[in-house]
C-alpha cells in the first residue's frame, strides 16, 4: 500500500522536475578543469607563466614523479635532471634543470623554481664528455675535501646530462 502511494507521488512530481533549470544538474566533476597551471621560473627568465598543461614529470629528490591536475599539495626538492612537460596540443617538451624546488599548490597550480634550465638541444655532448673526464680527475685526486665534493656534484649532474643526451 505504502509503495503504491509513493509511486503515485513520484508520478505527480515528475512534471516539476522537468521544469527545473538545467544548470542545477551540472556535476562537480564537469566544472573542474583537468589541466594544471605550470609556472617554470628561473631567476632570469620565465619559461612557463601559469600555462595550462596536462602533465609534468619531475625528478624529485624522493623519486621521479608525474604531476597531474588536482594533485595533493606538496613541496619537492628537485635533483638536477630532466623535467618533461606534456602539453595538450604541442606534445611534450623536455628541459634539463640544474636543481631547485617544485611546489604543488592546492588549486591545481605547479610552480617550479630552478637556477638554470635549458631545452636538450642547447647542450653539447662533447662539452659534457670533456667535463666528465676533468671532474673524474679532480674527484680521484688529492685536492681539498671541498674540491672533491664539488667534483662529485659535477659528475652527478654530467652523468645525468650524458644519459639524457644519448
Amino acid at each position: 500500500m505504502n509503495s503504491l502511494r509513493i509511486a503515485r507521488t513520484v508520478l505527480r512530481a515528475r512534471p516539476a522536475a522537468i521544469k527545473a533549470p538545467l544548470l542545477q544538474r551540472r556535476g562537480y566533476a564537469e566544472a573542474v578543469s583537468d589541466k594544471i597551471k605550470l609556472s617554470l621560473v628561473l631567476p632570469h627568465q620565465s619559461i612557463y607563466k601559469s600555462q595550462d598543461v596536462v602533465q609534468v614529470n619531475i625528478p624529485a629528490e624522493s623519486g621521479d614523479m608525474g604531476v597531474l591536475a588536482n594533485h595533493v599539495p606538496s613541496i619537492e626538492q628537485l635533483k638536477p635532471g630532466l623535467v618533461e612537460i606534456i602539453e595538450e596540443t604541442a606534445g611534450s617538451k623536455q628541459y634539463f634543470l640544474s636543481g631547485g624546488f617544485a611546489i604543488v599548490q592546492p588549486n591545481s597550480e605547479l610552480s617550479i623554481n630552478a637556477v638554470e634550465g635549458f631545452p636538450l638541444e642547447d647542450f653539447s655532448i662533447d662539452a659534457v664528455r670533456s667535463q666528465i673526464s676533468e671532474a673524474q680527475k679532480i674527484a680521484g685526486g688529492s685536492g681539498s675535501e671541498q674540491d672533491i665534493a664539488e667534483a662529485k656534484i659535477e659528475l652527478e649532474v654530467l652523468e645525468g646530462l650524458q644519459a639524457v643526451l644519448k
Partner: protein
Amino acid sequence: MAPAWKAAGLTYNKYLEVAARVVRRSLKDDIRLAAERRGQTELRFAKWTSGKQGDLTNVADANAVAMAEAGTPKTS
C-alpha cells in the same frame, strides 16, 4: 641520509651554484657565453668596527673559508 657534499661542509646554496655552473658549461658555445656571465659574483663586504671600515672581502672567498671550516676536521 645526508648527501656527501654536506659532510664536506658545502651549503645547499653552494650545491646549487656548482650544479648550475656545470649545466652552463655544458651548453653549446653561442648560448654558453651569454649564460656563463650569470654565474659571476662580484659582491664584497666589509665589517665595520668602532667607526672604522675593515678589509673589503669577496663574499665567494669568505664562503669558501667558512665551508672549509665546516667540513670534517683533518685527522693528522
